[in-house]
């Protein structure tokens, strides 16, 4: 059984944010393809609670580093990765782990762990390196500057991030990208081929009939139809909500609501922009809070449509995959479906609806609530399934191993 070490800049025991979910999906896909996978997270202790840590994780403890990372939040990952690469204890631990686990492939999510890994790799090794890109990180940082995250060293950090990404992309034996557009961009800058592996959602394999019916019951009790929005309180999600609905939710009738799941709900509710139109906004929303994995599908599939109003910021965009996987009509911004090219191409106007202006977005939402819109077809849902990811991963990883063996011969 081929052996893979999955190196991530976060723990994987309880995946929450998009990056973690993507990495967890990769792990599940590898296992589905018959690989043995060990996950190793390399992160700062204060960023994730101990109950989320895995047994092989390498956890850095440093109040100074924590302060530094918070002070320069846009480049917190770079600061942690640099500190880890400089810390001999971290490098030694990683090196001994590699020796002990003897992986055929080291799969790295995000470019950050490459810094300590570069130090820990034996000088001569036959381990194949896979770089899995979830964003082109350097270009994703610039929009964060307008949210007040720019510091005196930001431009320098941006250049360093770019160098790091390009170096790793050139060094790795296989480069994966979560986005078709970014795959082409990495190919252009590094002059090497990049494999596009679309985001997936475990909801794609769920069936409405097996799902609990809590949310549809809630909607009936409240005598309303609802639009589902599930996201974290990550700043671009909050900004996306308010730039899509800048004038409040008065376009909805009394019995039409937007239900917000995840930490986004509280962040939106507490935002002054929500308070400006509080009367109408409160009557047109419901803050659902954290939705357990088991209820996610119920939440999304009971809605009249699922919306993904993200206008900037990077990320794994797992929200879009979940939305498509729910089978309900997906109303999203151009930015939200960016990177899903081959998947949404055929579904545009037939399950996936793109709107980039508040007016167009509102019109689609009303249409879904009042007249109904067709949802995503099973073949579209299938493209964001774990099975598809596993099949694609196996194809490329096995090819990588074959190449290793033929080189050895």
């Amino acid at each position, binding site marked *: 059984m081929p052996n893979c070490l999955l190196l991530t800049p976060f723990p994987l025991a309880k995946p929450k944010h998009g990056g973690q979910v993507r990495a967890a999906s990769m792990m599940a896909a590898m296992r589905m393809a018959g690989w043995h996978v060990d996950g190793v997270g390399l992160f700062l202790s204060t960023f994730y609670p101990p109950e989320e840590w895995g047994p092989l994780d390498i956890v850095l403890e440093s109040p100074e580093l924590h302060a530094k990372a918070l002070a320069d939040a846009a480049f917190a990952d770079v600061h942690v990765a640099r500190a880890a690469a400089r810390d001999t204890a971290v490098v030694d631990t990683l090196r001994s782990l590699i020796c002990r686990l003897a992986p055929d492939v080291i799969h790295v999510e995000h470019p950050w762990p490459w810094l300590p890994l570069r130090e820990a790799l034996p000088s001569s090794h036959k381990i194949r390196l896979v770089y899995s890109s979830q964003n082109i990180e350097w270009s994703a940082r610039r929009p964060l500057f307008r949210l007040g995250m720019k510091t005196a060293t930001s431009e320098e950090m941006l250049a360093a991030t770019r160098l790091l990404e390009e170096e790793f992309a050139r060094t790795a034996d296989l480069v994966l990208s979560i986005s078709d557009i970014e795959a082409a961009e990495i190919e252009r800058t590094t002059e090497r081929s990049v494999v596009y592996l679309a985001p997936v959602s475990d909801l794609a394999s769920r069936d409405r009939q097996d799902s609990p019916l809590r949310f549809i*019951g809630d909607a009936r009790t409240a*005598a309303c139809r609802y639009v589902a929005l599930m996201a974290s309180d990550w700043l671009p999600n909050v900004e996306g909500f308010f730039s899509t609905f800048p004038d*409040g939710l008065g376009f909805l*009738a009394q019995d039409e609501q937007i239900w917000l799941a995840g930490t986004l709900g509280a962040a939106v509710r507490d935002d002054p922009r929500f*308070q*400006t139109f509080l009367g109408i906004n409160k009557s047109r929303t419901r803050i659902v809070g954290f939705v357990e994995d088991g209820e996610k599908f119920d939440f999304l599939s009971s809605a009249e449509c699922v919306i993904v109003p993200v206008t900037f910021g990077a990320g794994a965009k797992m929200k879009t995959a979940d939305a498509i996987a729910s089978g309900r009509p997906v109303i999203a911004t151009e930015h939200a479906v960016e990177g899903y090219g081959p998947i949404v191409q055929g579904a545009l106007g037939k399950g996936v609806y793109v709107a980039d202006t508040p007016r167009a977005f509102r*019109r689609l939402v009303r249409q879904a609530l009042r007249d109904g819109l067709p949802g995503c077809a099973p073949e579209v849902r299938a493209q964001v399934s774990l099975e598809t990811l596993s099949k694609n991963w196996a194809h490329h990883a096995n090819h990588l191993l074959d190449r290793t063996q033929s080189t050895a011969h």
Partner: protein
Amino acid sequence: MTFISYAQNLELASARTGGAPAIATLAPTAPCVPPPDSCCVYFDASLILHFGCNPPTGIVRVEQYVAQILAGVASISLSFLLFDQSIKAYRALRPDERARLNDILFHRYEARKAAKNSPSEHPHIIKASPVDAEKLRIVEVRAAARGKPARRNIFLKLLTTARITREVFAAVLSERLTRLLPVRQEHSLMRRVATRILRRSLFATGRGGHFILSRLASSTRTLFNLARVDAATHAPRTVLPRPTRPEAKPIGAFPFAQGDVLITMANTWDYMDYGYLTRIVRRDGVRLISVIYDVIAMEMPFTTPVPVHVYHRHWVELGHLATHLVAISRHSLQSYQHFIGEPNDLAPSMSYSYLPNFLYERRHEIGETIVPSLLDRRFVVFCSTIEARKNHQLLLHLWERLRQEIDSATLPILVLVGSWGWGVENVRLLSDRNWRLRDHLRILDGLSDAQLIWLYRNACFTVFPSHSEGFGLAAAESLSFGTPVVVANCPALIEATEGLMPAYDPLDLPNWLAEMRRLIVDSSSLTSLRRKAAQYKGAHYTDFAYAVRDAILASNQHRKASA
């Protein structure tokens, strides 16, 4: 079921002839049975009853006028309802409320009429009488109507208090205490200190009370919500909960029938349950007709007493639910479309019509009463609630400048007519502390309509420097009496004055100063402006009410056509 149906009982003589309606009598009748080709129309009289026989201002005046006119339209069966906070629904009026409403709408000026026939004590003043008969009569009516409505007012006030934020409450309380317990230079030191201590103690107590009240209200809401969520989540998951039946009507709620028309012209944002309003429109098939006075809160959110979202919700809900909206000016209609319609993709059927000059149209009925303190004095009037939006501040600065420039005998008295509103800390400072201006400033509250007419007739000219208006009735009223008015250049005021009068930016003090100086010292300028004022036509008395009537009849026609 008891409620009043006016149409079958009224003897309104001139409603459709263009003049003001004659006084009518009314008796309670059986439930509304519309004559053929007519429809049942229900009028929300909550605010009219709330204000009683006090001299009506703003919205209440418009409501009373529309109710009076519609009551005389034969093809409409007009009945009155009241929104009852305790059941969160409309209900029929009780006999005492009916009687009270009857007095308010149709017997307001009866005493005046009687007084008019008695010999005047001041024969040199045409139509003016120093005896305020109207006020005497109001006192009588008030005494008769004392009781439950007052208790409901306190309940409403408590509800509002519980809802407002700590900061807003503190601001309102502070303002009220400053007004009730003023600290003046002429007071002794001990009195000033004692007043301040008392003020602070009351402020602290008030805030404590507000905290308890708001927590109590919040806990009640939370408990209610928790109970609801609990009931919902404990439903068996494998079985779809039964679709909830539309909520049962509260006991005592008025049973609307399909096709009934509900007219609500009041400040319903203060009391309406929009869930209920949606239900009666969507489920019971009620056709809602309402009025848009303005959307100034959207335009200037810093000028309203409560947060903008309260009004915003009202306007949005109307956009969703109303069969037709009548705006009081073209500017109000366009502002509604711009600030509410477009951002919310709402395009309700709308029209606009100008408000009549109530005082002028009913001047014979109302009569005239002099304001003794202004007799034989030159004065300039600004009639409006004293609030931030109305820009009294500009006038007070202006008058101080004029005081320095013009001799005391020539400078007219600036008369501010209206009650104190909100956001007026600066106006209070400017008016209270500037003792030099005291001889040339009067702030008059609680004047009768008869006194107002006297003021309009006898003023040198009037002013209206408001930052924004939905129409600017006081400017139009002034012109109707032939008295010129200098206005701010906001579109509604230009409409109200038919573009005849000088208009300046409300922040342009130098130009206002120049215009005031001209009109005060140069009599030919004033005479020429009076000539222009004489060209004013004004809206026909029934125009606005008939716009509401037409909306009712059109919706009736539409309903018949659809059927």
